């Protein structure tokens, strides 16, 4: 029972590996940090784990089975820029219910206000939009969440609030979380363990 990446390798230019022979494993309920300098492949690794891109080498398995190509993916990703992750032409009610209809408790826990639902995405701030992205990632079928720089562009107070709620919700459902960030203090505070990608790419393994 875990999200496993085995022997993962990825390059944009042939044989110029960004990382290679990388192993990573996240158990349900675990909070794992992923850190490293800009351009070291943090987001790429996140996208591979979430099934958005295919690795050149290696496999990703969820609880023993390969990532499903069709249907709902149990590994969901939350992006850094919520305004790019939401269709600018939709109204927020549609955005909120695209993956499933969230319960009132979930909506209230994330402090999503009813008056926002009739608006377009440009009429909300980044922090407000990110709450919607979190809500729709928390589908009942979600087992793992990759949070890629989820709160980097938000102010400190909003960051703290969102992480507090997010961690509580994930813990309650036993969801495994990977937090991608280069803020060491944030990772130290939130994660059970932290992987530094530049160390791993040299050695080739991160358990």
């Amino acid at each position, binding site marked *: 029972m875990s999200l496993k990446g085995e022997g993962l390798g990825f390059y944009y230019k042939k044989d110029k590996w960004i990382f290679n022979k990388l192993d990573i494993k996240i158990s349900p309920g675990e909070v794992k940090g992923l850190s490293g300098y800009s351009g070291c492949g943090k987001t790429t690794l996140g996208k591979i784990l979430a099934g958005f891109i295919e690795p050149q080498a290696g496999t990703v398995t969820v609880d023993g089975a390969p990532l499903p190509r069709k249907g709902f993916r149990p590994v969901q990703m939350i992006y850094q820029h919520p305004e790019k992750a939401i269709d600018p032409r939709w109204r927020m009610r549609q955005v909120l219910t695209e993956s499933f209809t969230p319960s009132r408790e979930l909506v209230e826990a994330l402090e999503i206000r009813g008056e926002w639902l009739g608006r*377009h995405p440009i009429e909300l701030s980044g922090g407000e939009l990110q709450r919607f992205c979190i809500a729709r990632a928390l589908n009942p079928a979600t087992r793992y969440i990759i949070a890629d720089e989820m709160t980097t562009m938000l102010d400190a107070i909003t960051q703290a609030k969102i992480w507090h709620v997010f961690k509580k919700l994930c813990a309650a459902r036993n969801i495994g979380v990977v937090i991608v960030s280069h803020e060491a203090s944030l990772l130290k505070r939130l994660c059970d363990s932290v992987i530094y990608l530049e160390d791993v790419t040299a050695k080739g393994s991160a358990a």
Partner: protein
Amino acid sequence: MFKKLKNMNARERMLIAAIFSGALLLAIFVLSFTISDGNLRANARIMDQGPSFSHPFGTDWLGRDMLARTMKGLRLSLMVGVVASIISVIISVILGVGSAVLGKTVDNVISWVTDLFIGMPHLIFMMLVCFMMGGGVKGIIVGVSLTHWSLLARVIRAEVLQLKNAEYMQISSSFGKSLWFIAWHHVIPYIMPQIIIRFLSVFPHAIVHEAAITFLGFGFSPQTPAIGVILSEAMAHISTGKWWLVFFPGFLLVLVAKSFDSISEQAHILLEPVSANE
């Protein structure tokens, strides 16, 4: 109760503009049915009369009432224009989206056909089609729609190729949404402005081409009250000072095209999130 036009927001202004334009189109439509066809018959006693109370748009050199001819002509032209524009837009959407999502081979074939149609002179091709279909409404509709889809298909292909990489599209498919759901809810709204604009620019083309084809003898027969027929006939009489033959039909045609334009412009403002609440 009535606010000054400047103080209204986009929604209120759009409502008023849409009501005006809609009322005009409806009035033409109703008039075209209520005026009796008897007014289209030649009548030697009332030849070449200027505008008067009994014949507001005057009469032509055969004594036919120009109001009746204009209204019936506009109805026919509107019908031809709308149907031809809709068909050409549908062809563009199918080929444009198909070209972008169905892979390289399909893309190559569709792009080749699109280039072929862009390179072909419209008028010649339409004459061929009209001749094949035996002239009349069908020939003009098929001719116009077959020649006017290629530019929009190219634009849509480019838009969809760009949209394919958008994060929200990939997220939607990670939610397990079907290709149809994504096409209908993400892609179509994205390309809708292009579709509306193209629809409206094809519309006057259809009317002009209809007139051109008719003028060359491949379209409607001369007794059909189409706006193109009326205008090309009136050309011969302008120099003799019979201004009403060309002024009223021409002016109404411009008005109708403008109403279409204003309806679509307001719709566009409402569809764009940036301006919806202005």
